[in-house]
């Protein structure tokens, strides 16, 4: 069983945290990662900064811009993650836009991920058909889970199709929005979560977008295997830097029942 499967079979109320690599300082990537694991995060998503992050709101956009100014690139990220499996045990997923991966070379990228012990990838603008027709074999033989997004507008048929081709988990985007739009969870969203759950999917789900505190995390956990916190955590980093103690407090604050 791989790390993602293990996690989802062992735990519920999974707390997954997104942060941008190379932010706020270029060499903070591993510091933040370790602090997240120590602080109680169950899964991390490391964002690979991109010049044109079109599914992201202002907070993550700004962190990407800062990280690029700090000189971040995929090459440097791989360098920083060189020994990551010596001291981090939780599953790691890389998240980023397709162009930098395409430019790096998809095969080379997957091989490198496998070598470093990366468990999955979230590439929002890699379309489902393209993945299935060109890359699924490559990902699966390397043991890298490709994680798809679904949204309130995604039809049941399409969710089922995505489920059939998914490994790891399905990323349930909580509302029609870019990252960071902060709202209370509304009834229409609950209806959507219930619709997803009624489909009896074989892949576990995590809810993300707009999850940022104890209350939204708790609500999300009632409707999925757990939730993903992004902008709220990136905001913490931008205000306090890669401070291990604050990071721990943040995670504990979100997870406390």
């Amino acid at each position, binding site marked *: 069983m791989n790390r993602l499967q293990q996690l989802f079979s062992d735990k519920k109320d999974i707390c997954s945290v997104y942060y941008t690599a190379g932010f706020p300082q270029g060499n903070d990537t591993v510091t933040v990662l370790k602090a997240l694991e120590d602080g109680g995060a169950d899964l991390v998503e490391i964002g690979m900064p991109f*010049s*044109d992050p079109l599914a992201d709101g202002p907070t993550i956009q700004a962190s990407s811009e800062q990280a690029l100014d700090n000189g971040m690139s995929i090459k440097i990220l791989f360098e920083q993650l060189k020994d990551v499996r010596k001291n981090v045990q939780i599953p790691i997923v890389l998240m980023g836009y*397709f162009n930098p991966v*395409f*430019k790096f070379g998809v095969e080379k990228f997957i091989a490198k991920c496998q070598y470093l012990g990366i468990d999955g990838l979230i590439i929002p*603008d890699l*379309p489902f058909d393209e993945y299935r027709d060109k890359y699924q074999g490559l990902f699966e033989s390397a043991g890298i889970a490709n994680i798809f997004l679904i949204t309130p507008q*995604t039809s049941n048929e399409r969710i089922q199709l995505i489920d059939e081709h998914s490994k790891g988990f399905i990323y349930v985007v909580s509302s*029609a929005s*870019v990252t960071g739009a902060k709202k209370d969870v509304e009834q229409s969203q609950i209806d959507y979560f219930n619709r997803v759950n009624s489909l009896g999917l074989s892949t576990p789900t995590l809810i993300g977008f707009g999850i940022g505190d104890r209350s939204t995390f708790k609500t999300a956990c009632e409707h999925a295997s757990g939730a993903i916190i992004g902008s709220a955590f990136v905001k913490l980093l931008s205000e306090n830097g890669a401070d291990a103690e604050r990071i721990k407090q943040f995670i504990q604050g979100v997870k406390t029942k």
Partner: protein
Amino acid sequence: MSKQNKYHVDEKGMYGQFGGAYIPEMLYPNIENLKAVYKDIIGSDAFQDEYKSLLKDYVGRPSPLYLAKRLSEKYQTNVYLKREDLNHTGAHKINNTVGQILIAKHMGKQRIIAETGAGQHGVATATACALMGLQCVVYMGEVDIERQAPNVARMKMLGAEVVAATSGSRTLKDATNEALRDWICNPEDTFYLIGSVVGPHPYPDMVAQLQAVISEEIKLQIAEKTNKDYPDYVIACVGGGSNAAGSFYHFLDDERVQLVAVEASGMGVDSGETAATIAKGDKGLIHGSLTFLMQSNDGQITEPYSISAGLDYPGIGPQHAHLFDTGRAQFLSATDKEALDAALQLTQLEGIIPALESSHALAALDKMSFKKDDSVVITLSGRGDKDMATYMKRFGF
């Protein structure tokens, strides 16, 4: 691949290896919906009747094909100008916005969003929205808002809301990102009216079809004016590539016609200050399309430069990438200086002040050689009113 389809989009939204719809799942239903209906809408009598009548009575089409005598004399050939500059709002952009606004109406959309660089597409969109009484939001880079104040005022006067894109380099590509983000957040009532043959499938094909009226008219007009029913050359400037796509459309499968696309090379192709995407870019993804783009070694999209705000887009439409790849079209580039010289020359030989974008197409005359009886069509995509500040500064008038 059938002959018919060699240069047009296939069922998967590809032009050879280029195109597609590399979009996040949030946009998938919108794009699927548009894909499902756009061909039928464009093909319907109701659409065609309304579109044709607006093009005629509102836009002022057909635009003349003008034999530029003194220019022809200078180059010892026959230069015809396709006068898109005479359209309402002063450029070819209106052909597309009038068409897309009708598609939006057929789809029952209430709210129109658009991106703009120099403001030409924004003005053309705001115009079409005013005409149809639809809500209009135009995203424009903060830097461009400062550079293009008159167009910002025109859009506002037309009733549009102009929203500053403050992310990234705060220019056209960022305005496009903001428009896409808006669409992600408003998937149900909003229609994204893209300004060029860029973006995810079906946009490149839809916009090309709406600009195809340019070559449809050229074909008829050249037959009237010469003893052949085709020109030997069609030359157009390329930013995203919509005026070129429209100018080429009906000649794509007629290999007797040489197609020439002219990019903006800014301070020079190798100066680092350029927008010559085909010359300096490589393959990748921008705004949902697999095409050529200007990017760093790490795959970050870089900011292009050209004196002409309508040409400084870091990508190029996927059909053009395919036309380059297959050799069907020839790609040239012109510098700021060459475009300025060409603008002044046209003004003083023919009494026509061209847009800076179109001046890049005119600059190709100095880079090519023609036979005496060739017919050379150059698409004059827009008029120069909007560029007077630049001309005044550069020429000292």
